[in-house]
């Protein structure tokens, strides 16, 4: 919606097919459309947030084939044939993902604006490294900024989720 490319017929569209939260999505996207705008404005998935626009803050983090990417600087067409997971797709059959529950139990968010990206980055970490130590968590997560919590409770939430607490 933000950039309504239907107004720009001169630009060649790229046909894409991908899965978003397990559902197949087929569309024709302009080459410069970011994955963030595609998710938010074309698919109405508002969980990923726009902040720094420079791949620094991590608020727009989503998973592409399981890896955390900054969707503000990742083009939608690059996600063709990929499996994309957003925060909306994390809970399964109404059951929160252990990280979501752990973020609640450990008070790992306040304003919540960084939280979708934070949880997905943490998921990407735990999928690669089931039991990271604190140092590994801090190193992996430093691409996600939180201005509210001071990070301590986020580290605790990730440790607890990894330990199955």
């Amino acid at each position, binding site marked *: *919606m*933000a*950039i*309504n*490319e239907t*107004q*720009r017929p001169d630009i060649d569209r790229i046909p894409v097919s991908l899965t978003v939260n397990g559902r197949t999505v087929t569309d024709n996207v302009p080459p410069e459309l970011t994955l963030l705008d595609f998710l*938010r404005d074309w698919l109405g*998935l*508002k*969980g*990923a*947030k*726009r*902040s*720094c*626009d*420079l791949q*620094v*803050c991590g*608020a727009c983090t989503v998973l592409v084939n399981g890896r955390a990417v900054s969707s503000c600087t990742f083009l939608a067409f690059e996600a063709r044939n990929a499996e994309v997971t*957003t*925060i*909306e797709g*994390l*809970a399964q059959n109404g059951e*929160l993902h252990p990280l*979501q*529950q752990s*973020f*609640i*139990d450990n*008070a790992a*968010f*306040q*304003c*919540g*604006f*960084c*939280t*979708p990206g934070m*949880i997905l980055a943490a998921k990407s970490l735990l999928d690669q490294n089931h039991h990271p130590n604190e140092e590994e*968590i*801090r*190193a992996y*997560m*430093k*691409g*996600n*900024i*939180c*201005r*509210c*919590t*001071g*990070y*301590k*409770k*986020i*580290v605790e939430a990730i440790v607890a989720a990894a330990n199955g607490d």
Partner: protein
Amino acid sequence: MTTTVGKPVPRIDALDKVTGRAAYVGDLEIPGMVHGLILRSPWPHARVLSIDSTEAERLPGVLGVLTRDHLEGIDAYFGSVVRDRPIVAMDKVRYQGEPVAAVAARDLATAQEALELIRVEYEELPLVSEMEEALVPGSPALHETNLCAEQHYDWGDVEEGFAQSDRVFEDTFTFPMVYHYALEPHTSIGHYTNQGITVWSTAQHPFLVRSDLARMFGFSLHQVRIIVPYLGGGFGSKSYTKMEPLAVALSKVAGRPVRLALSVEEAFKTVRRHAARLTVKTGVKLDGTFVARECLIYLDTGAYADNGPLVAGRAGERIAGPYRWPSLKVSSSAVYTNSTPAGSFRSIGAPQAAWASESQVDIIAHDLGIDPLEIRIKNMVSRGEEVRRGQRPLEGDPATGLRLAAEAVGWDDEAAEESGRAVSSALVTGKGLGCNLSGVGSSPTSTALVRMHVDGTLTVLVGTTELGQGSRSAMAQVASEELTVPMDSVDVISSDTSIVPYDRSTGSSRSTTLMGLAVQDGAIEVKDQLLELAALHFESPVEELSIEEGQVLCRGESIGFGELIQEEFGGVAGELMGRGYVTPRSHGGRLAQSPVFWEVGISAAEVELDVETGAIRIPHYVSVADVGKAINPQQCEGQDEGAAMQGLGHTLFEEMLYEDGQLLNPNLIDYKVPTFAELPDKLETILIENGDGPGPFGSKGLGEGGIVAAGPAVANAIFRATGVRIKELPLTPERVWRALRRARGQD
């Protein structure tokens, strides 16, 4: 019996926030909504000779262009203290990035194209970039004068005090311009019609925005509705009125709702914290007793006043610290320069004031050979003492808090070693303390409505904005506790000026205390009504009734709240309403005296410094908050930890840099904020709970104190590690490295 207060119960917004359902202004789609973009001044100071927007207006897809020529019928100026800020530039621009024109179009690409078609002719004016230049007679003036505001505090005779002192110290400190970086930039959707205005906005103080818009656009208050959904952080950056008038004016020309979503770069050009230069002169006795203090404070308020006059006032009060002063004289000024306007930022004026005050306390302690902890305790005000002339006596006990912080960081161990400890040839460590006392709470003006539905559940209506601090949850806890119903039976609706009753503002650590009291009073009113109904039901005097777990009990019998309401209204219908009014006269007038309460900021830092690179690491950081009673201990810790990390940001690297009036680093690559990498190995929060706060259940607010003393705690630790005193923030590796070299005579 307690149901929820004092327990780490989950936030009521928890599910919304971990599932991505929580909607922020930028997530809203208003029917008919179009998109706005702002044309900003490339010049820091220039006369606007002409603006030609005809071509832009003709571009297909453009619905409206706003310039100074499109403001007919609108009072274009606003400002929380001084009405000096126009919606868009009028005769001149005063900082790089100031809005000059705006476009509403069917999509952002068209809006961008239209912006490029607007022709603005400027005549560059000489620039004022430093406060020193600004106050020199004959220097270029941004407004009628460059002195925005000046505040004075004066008691006792400082000259006599200095004459009686054994030693007099005078030091000057500087504090950088910093930016809040709430992750969500300012976003407003304005909808103007002939009947009134609706605005969805990132506003901490929606009722103050309502007043401004009503005045500017000629409506009465009931015609202006401000709706604030979840906020993606505030920290003061979204206090008072910011982009709302522009969004509304643009909607007026476009005839449609207009969404104005700023980028982070634009947010950098909307508001920031005041840079400061502070000179502190302190007279002491040889035994460390403070005798007199005189301070001269200059705060750089940028191009417009915003909250600068209040910030100057608060900095002036807060530079006295938590200490007893037989004489004190402070002059504190806010000065205009050609830069982003400076406004409120978490504990206004306090980090600047504490940076100077608390650094100098250590300078004095070192010079007199007194332990920095002891000199603080010796001069500290204690419970019941008058902190500032005519203000509320201190209800807390900062000395106990400071001792706890010192103990937690292992102060005594280091004192025994007397100085910094070398870890290796390059690494040294040291410990430092900092503390401050801030009168907070703003004014006691908050109202709440507590509605009990026919099934016994509650909807609480408050004007407190949920900006992450957990206000909705705290209010739910207070209502739940007072009416003995579970948390999940309480919903809290906040910040919709046409629905919720009035609240002055969300800031100054005031909401749990003042709105908390209003909610508690509302809940008590509901309880009284329930007891009245139960007295009829049981045919028994109210004195024989009690409530427990959603029931009224009487001589071994019980009846549910919902059943009582049904009995009154007949059928499954009706509800009870309780009102809470917090005013200067309410509660026996006990909230009238300023401040509502005193918030401590106490920090202790252990610092590891690489003397070869100047790089600082913080192995251990302790923050103490006196909360009276923690309504939710886990959330209190979170507030304090967040504040501490934000404080470490301006201490270690945050700084907005200007050159020739151009902001060099308005982005997250060039302006660094703390990440996980800067989290101290051990970050500790200590909550003091003496039940001595004026809020519900003896609580008092927090959230600001934690940011205040980070700077001096770290700089004092560096001094103890190296003997080198640094009087400028931030403590970047380069600055520290240069200071170390200078001290060794290598520069």
